[in-house]
């Protein structure tokens, strides 16, 4: 059977890349003594599926992976076992068994919500907040997106499901509370994924302002699935109370 695990990643471990996070969990699952299922064949491996890779340097409180297990007693016990072998900065938030035939984490991803703040707001152009809201209010934002196959022109507006400017909140593993934060809800479907950096770079280009390198602090709030239709989305977290 499949179990879905939700975790947070913050503090120093934000510099661990996606593949290494997967390796980390493979070893953690062994340490926790979880009755994990292995694939058949010459080199058996744990059957796991990660929802959406998180870029190096970003923090998150909405990461997910699915794990195939041979037995499962209860969520609380599983969560406790796994949490007991975590390093500082990786926290198990929730564990739920999945229904038979449920789509795996990776295939379920439709969108991701982010909070973006600036390392140093003083360097930003004046009135950037107003300009950002104007930018989002435009009906069309044509951009060139680089893909594996080359470049294609897309309407970025269609992939930004929401954009707000919020007052900053404190987050685990972060020393300071930012003054302002940009809330972004972005398309994260396989092949359609939009990174928050891309949105903000595009925006600042319209102001002819080049964002200094590494000036964004990006925090993923949630990874979502679409319970509605393509036309009328109903986005809910990958684990949610029905």
């Amino acid at each position, binding site marked *: 059977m499949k179990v879905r695990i939700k975790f947070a990643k*913050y*503090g*120093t*471990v934000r*510099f*661990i*890349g996606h593949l*290494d996070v997967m*390796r*980390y969990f*493979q*070893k*953690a*699952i*062994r*340490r926790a*003594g979880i009755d994990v299922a*292995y694939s058949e064949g*010459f*080199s*058996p*491996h744990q059957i796991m599926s990660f929802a959406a890779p998180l870029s*190096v*340097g970003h923090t998150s409180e909405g990461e997910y992976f699915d794990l195939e297990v041979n037995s499962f007693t209860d969520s609380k016990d599983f969560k406790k076992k796994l949490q007991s*072998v975590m*390093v*500082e*900065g990786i926290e198990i938030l929730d564990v739920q068994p999945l229904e038979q035939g449920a789509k795996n984490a990776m295939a379920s991803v439709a969108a991701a919500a982010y909070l973006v703040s600036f*390392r140093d707001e003083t360097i930003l152009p004046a009135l950037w907040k107003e300009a950002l809201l104007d930018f989002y209010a435009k009906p069309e934002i044509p951009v060139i997106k680089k893909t594996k196959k080359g470049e294609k022109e897309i309407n970025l507006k269609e992939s930004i499901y929401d954009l707000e400017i919020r007052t900053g909140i404190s987050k*685990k*593993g972060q*020393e300071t509370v930012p003054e302002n934060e940009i809330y972004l809800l972005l398309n994260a479907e396989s092949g359609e994924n939009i990174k928050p950096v891309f949105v903000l770079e595009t925006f600042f280009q319209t102001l002819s302002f080049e964002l200094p*390198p*590494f000036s964004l602090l990006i925090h993923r709030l949630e990874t979502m699935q679409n319970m509605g239709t393509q036309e009328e989305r109903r986005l809910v977290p990958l684990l949610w109370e029905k």
Partner: protein
Amino acid sequence: MGRLALKDEILMQVEKPARYIGNEVNAVIKDKEQVDIRFAMCFPDVYEIGMSHLGIQIIYDMLNQFEDVWCERVYSPWVDLDAIMRREQIPLFALESQEPIRNFDFLGITIQYEMCYTNILQILDLSGIPFLAEERTWEDPVVIGGGPCTYNPEPICDFFDLFYIGEAETRYRELLDLYKKCRDEKTSRKEFLERAAQIPGMYVPSLYEVSYHTDGTLKERHALIKEIPIKIEKELVTDVSDTYYPEKPIVPFIKVTQDRVVLEIQRGCIRGCRFCQAGQLYRPVRERSLEMLKAYAVKMLKNTGHEEISLSSLSSSDYSCLPELLDYLIETCKEQKINISLPSLRIDAFSLDVMNKVQDVKKSSLTFAPEAGSQRLRNVINKGLTQEEILEGARLAFEGGWSRVKLYFMLGLPMETEEDIEGIADLCNQIAAVYYETVPKEKRTGRVQIVASTSFFIPKPFTPFQWAPQCTKDEFLHKAYLTRTAIASQLNQKSIKYNWHEADVSVLEGIMARGDRRLNKVILRAYQKGCMYDAWSEYYKNDVWFETFEECGIDPSFYTTRERNDDEIFPWDFLDCGVSREFLLREWHKAKDESITPNCRVQCQGCGASRFRTGVCTEGGRGQ
């Protein structure tokens, strides 16, 4: 959550930032206010190499068991971060606390190969610690070296306050207690070192002076104070089953070279190959008990979550309880799909049977290390492996479904002739022929793959070949050329692939290996001129090195190509690794006579190690 020493902007710019953040599973965090001694343990190479080293894990675990000590780790920043740290004047820091190394009480550096010497200077430089021990004050950590290269510490002796000669498990407590006492009593740093030099195994180079003959060879050395020994005996663990060994090794986030549990099954080697330094340094061979190994295997797998366990030793086939240990591991690992890796195993029916049980059906390649191409030369080097054994091992392997064979040889061994080199090609060819004879056409999956690799032989201290001349670069390259052409003329040449090492770096390694105190200034100068990461061919600057020798008025060939007289005093002779100089000289003469020496279990050769009264020297009531 602690702060990181490096800003995000820097970590985002460098390759693999996880090298610098610490916080790995099983890393030890202590309250710095609650400890008396801060110890930084360093492997002077990049994180992935350093983290794969068992010795550091043992010392880290031991020192952190002491309540008054916090041992942390530090590795060489990779060249990208190195440049940023110099530019922005960021001091080198330890991974756990992320605090500057200069604030520590001790900086321990393990010295595993000669080509890391400039990286030692990089560590000191980035830490803001003076290169020269004589310029340090109590504001600086005590810089202590350990590891195999300390068996000739003279080329780097100016950079160290002291060296720990031998195995670390025995004397650290005593040294640390002395340090605390001296700090309490507010003694001078010099007095601490003078007293430290009286602890067995401790060598304080500044307390000894050497003089040279006009021909450049060593004349004599004497101690500057009377309380310290003129000869320093190595430290050794007598009971390897009841000692420090990490139950919870650190699990790196990024993939490192040795990404597995390492179970050291024994120390030392009974074989006595004449080129091998480790085979002499770690005598006598001491086996860990089966019970200890079983218990540690289980605990270490549980505490790390690794998917592989590797048995470590110089010659695993000689471990007397190997079948029992392997049966246990196979049984234990089956459920959890854990791989067992078995390096340094002699290829025979037993080992092939074991490998069949523990390895994938996709057969990996098998490794033989004949080291020399002819039986005559194998007798010279005392490599007790015959052509019949190799061919029989290969035949069994081919029958068992293997079709890839790796062979390791050395070029430039003493007394080597062109026939010996041709023997390499001939042996490869014969192995290929065995494949075609053994495996019927319908069962073959293409050609057999034979990969022959040669390295260049470098004479090392405390081996019978310490008297031997080393080849010049041109001789090395000529030998590699002869090997290549000999292989190309074989019937089965299409099944044989040949790799050889760089010759430049082998020459430098040879200089350092048998060097003396006069090399300190060359190493410092070469570092100042940009040499670093010499073990990495892409960063090795041969021209700069040899230019520096000239600048310093030092003839490199003095250290390499010269055959030493039987009675020459060597720079490392003041150390006593347990094996006597008389024994080594006897072996050197036997090598010249092409005469072999049986291994320790067959017949004791009176090498001198029996004075430790442990291990193979006391097996079956021997040596009691």
